[in-house]
């Protein structure tokens, strides 16, 4: 590769840096955001299931967001775009019913909150709405 080509490739690489092209899917959001930030052993892991929410796996996240045995975190949506208002966003940006913002030990990065908000607005791809089951 000649020096000029290297510069072009480097420029392409740097321009890609910082763009948020992460997939808006339940699987991706669970594995890369919810699991590492919410599913700590002592919190919303399968092991502890604080307030019956667990986010270790996609299947458990589906149950938690659906509010199978607790408060529902994502509202049902038929139209597009969906409303960004959901209990999940309220909990991670403001406070839950007990006055605590989640994650309890430290805030979620705003970029991650935005990705989750966009995902919900775009229909929460991968999340099976109760009405669809």
């Amino acid at each position, binding site marked *: 590769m000649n020096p000029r080509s290297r510069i072009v490739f480097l420029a392409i690489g740097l321009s890609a840096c910082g763009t948020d092209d992460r997939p808006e899917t339940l699987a991706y959001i669970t*594995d890369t955001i919810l699991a590492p930030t919410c599913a*700590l052993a002592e919190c919303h892991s399968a092991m502890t*299931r*604080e307030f019956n929410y667990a986010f270790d796996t996609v299947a458990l996240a589906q149950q938690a967001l659906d509010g199978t045995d607790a408060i529902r975190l994502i509202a049902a949506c038929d139209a597009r775009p969906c409303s960004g208002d959901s209990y999940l966003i309220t909990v991670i940006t403001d406070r839950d019913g007990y006055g605590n913002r989640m994650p309890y030990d430290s805030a979620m990065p705003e970029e991650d909150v935005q990705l989750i908000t966009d995902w919900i607005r775009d229909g929460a791809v991968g999340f099976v709405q109760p009405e669809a089951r």
Partner: protein
Amino acid sequence: MKMLVILVVAVIADTAHAYPEFQLSRDQTCSSCHLSPAGGELLGENGLDTAEQISQWGGAPEAFYGKLAMPSWLVVGGDFRGAAGLDNEGLKSELVEFPMQAEAYAEAALGSHFSLHVTAGARPPQYGNTASTLFSSREHWLIWERDGLFIRAGRFMPVYGLRLAEHPDYDRRYGGTPLYGEAYGISAEYVERAWELHATGFIRDPLLPDSVEQGNGAALYAETRVATATSIGLEGMFVEDRDDARLFGGMTAKHYVSSAGILLEMELQGVHQKVHAGGTENQIVGYALASYFYKAFMVDLGVGYFNENIRVTAVDREAIDLNIHWFSTSHLELILTNRIQLIELGRGGSGSGYSLLQFHYRL
């Protein structure tokens, strides 16, 4: 208030590990003070001597102060921890108090080369299922040992990285060895003064499917003491579960500046995560720690860095930890533990922190 206590216990619960700060500053290997080849929990003769020597007021370091005669083939111990202080999660500060750990250990020699280890005690219970989940055995293994070679089978934490005691440290939380990350596995380990090697294969817990480690995997950690006061380690781990696969790789380094009584150590990892349903992430996890020893005190100043996706801006976390340990007696330790945590140095979200006084009693 009850709700708050539950939440804070949940976030800051702990389990005892060794202090890797003592490696190189006190002796060359973890196993020279601990019975386990990985360090942690039960102390051997050298570890008991160290516990007495470093403490302010000493006292018999054996379990039950040596008052309870144990058969020569049995070693017992335990750790009890609790904490109180100020916690700030970014929106508000609150005074908190909570228990952290109550666990007992036993190791029984079975002949001249085999031994059986059991760690049992309280754990964070599962919501709505407290009675049947409050007590458990976090670790139990059968080990064969001869001339520094260990073969271990059972439930234990794969040996990987610096193995710092504080589980919020980024190299543990995001670096492959989270709290309650123990799994059933088998390991081959070799430890001598100049170098050590730990190879572990592990599986998703067939008995407790709700365990923290949901995948099958393997871990490798190799460390060489390139000089009496310097070590370098290489590490790699692969874990795959139903949803994703993660590949960890990195290095550790330690150096003890004996003239200043300061131990420097660091761990740096790259993590590649592949989500089976689509998407990948490349992450960076790092932690650097300087430990200063003065009489019965150990002062740890640590800096952590975690970038959850290097292609996306403003999703990196930074942490500064200042922990002051006072070894008052052979058994009692008080720790003032403090953390400030930021996202993208304050530009990616609100910061958080805590200042807690931790009580630790070693049985």
